[in-house]
Structures are given as structure tokens and as C-alpha cells.
């Protein structure tokens, strides 16, 4: 059986733009680390890492172009799972 190419394909140009975006975000994180932002710095770094992951997931991993219930659930489902995991661990260690 032939594999149907039913994905509305991202063009090479889109991929290059996403790559430039990822490099810019990396530059921002590295230069932010030079500033003394204290505890805020970690959150900024994590938010930037989250945005970079989102770009990779949506464009490079084609989640933006996938149809079907399962693929729509992957990102929110994983985020929910990790948030629950982290929240439960931290409510434990913070109030010990």
C-alpha cells in the first residue's frame, strides 16, 4: 500500500524560518544568563525553552499539520501530565 502524503507539507522556507527563530531564542537565553536576574532568570529560561520546544513540535514534528484526535491531544496532554507530576512533588517537598 502506498503511503498517502496527506500532510499539508511545510515548505523548506518555513523550516529555515523556524530554525532562525530557534537560534534567535537561544541567543536571547544565553545573553539573559549574563544578566543577574536572580530567581526570575530560571523562569525566563524555562519559558524560552518551552517556546523553542513548541516550535520544534509544531513545525519540525508536524503537529501543526496532523489531523486526528490523538495528535491534537499530545501537547496539552503531556503538559498536563508534567505539571501534575511537578506540582505533586513540590507540594510534598515544600511542606515537609
Amino acid at each position: 500500500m502506498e503511503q498517502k502524503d496527506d500532510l499539508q507539507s511545510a515548505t523548506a522556507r518555513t523550516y529555515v524560518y523556524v530554525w532562525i527563530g530557534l537560534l534567535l531564542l537561544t541567543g536571547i537565553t544565553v545573553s539573559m544568563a549574563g544578566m543577574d536576574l536572580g530567581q526570575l532568570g530560571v523562569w525566563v529560561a524555562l519559558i524560552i525553552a518551552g517556546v523553542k520546544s513548541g516550535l520544534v513540535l509544531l513545525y519540525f514534528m508536524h503537529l501543526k499539520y496532523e489531523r486526528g484526535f490523538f495528535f491534537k491531544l499530545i501537547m496539552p496532554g503531556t503538559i498536563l501530565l508534567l505539571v501534575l507530576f511537578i506540582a505533586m512533588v513540590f507540594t510534598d517537598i515544600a511542606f515537609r
Partner: protein
Amino acid sequence: MEEHKDTIGSKIGMWIFLLSEVILFGGLFVLYSAYRFKFRGDFHLAAMDLNRLLGTLNTVILLTSSLTMALSIASIRKGLRGSSVVYLAATILLGLLFLGIKYLEWSAKVGHGIYPNSPDLLGRSSAEVLFFGLYYAMTGLHGFHVLVGVALLSAMCFFVVKGKIKKTDFILLENSGLYWHLVDIIWIFLFPLFYLMA
């Protein structure tokens, strides 16, 4: 008899495997966060020993390898076997370059007497020992994933050359690409948490 392939099914299977990988690394990230929450000062101090330049260089290399991976799949979907092989070979080389830099970085650490159970490290605070334990465990497990990825992509490269992966049947390459991108995402989080915390 015609071979039956369920491409949506195999893609869903791959994603379920990737989710199990997220949980594997997620556990280690939670461990890192819990100890960092407890020993912020020591983690800050220990992170100063990491080489920010090499970490940044490896980030750029891995992001670029993700681009060439995506371009390789885009090429095979257009039926351009030659450019698909070239992009795939570039991805493999960038993966090897990443591992080479990781080797240099680890060697320098070991050269400075920072390795598990070293007399130097045992002379430091227990929180710094924890930091380097997590550093070696997490970047080591990630490096192992890159090594597996390089082997996997080499096999895929062979299949593309042989014509087993083609315009009408590229699910193997697509799933390998998903794995490669996930390894990239894990590094996107490892990089700031270890190299930029000084």
C-alpha cells in the same frame, strides 16, 4: 499479496514511545528541580565549572541537525532521493560533532578532577556532588540517545539509498525524524538548566 502498512498506526506508536521518553527524562528533571530548590547556592556555584561556550555550540549544532532532518523528509516527500540522502548525512555528521564536543567537554571535566567519586569532588559540599552526579547522568543519558539516533539515521540513510524508503513509503524516515527532534527538545531544556545557571 500486497504488503499492508498502517502509517497512522505506526506514527501513533512512535509518539507513545516518545511520551515514555518524556516521562523518563521528566523524572530526572523533577529530581534536578527538587535538589535545586533545596540547594540553590551550591548549584549556582557548581554550574560555574561548566563550559558555557561548548554548551551553546552544541545547542546550535543540535538545532541545525533538526533543520537538516526536517529537510531530508521534505525532500523524500518530493521524491528527491539525492538531496534527502545529503540532508540525512548532514544530520548524522552534526550528531557526531555533538558527541565529539561532548567528549571534549567531559574529558576536560575529568582532567580537572571532576568525575563521580573523585577525591576533588568529594572535598566539595554534598550538594555540588549531587549537581555533578545529575550532570553526568542527564547529559550522559541524552548523549546515549544521540548515539542511538546516529545509528538509527545511518540505517535510514542506507534504506533511502537502497530505495526502501521512497516518495510513496517514508514512514520509517518520518518516525526516525520524530525521535531525533525529541532528543533535540530534551537538550533544549538540559542546556539552560545546567549551563546557564551560574
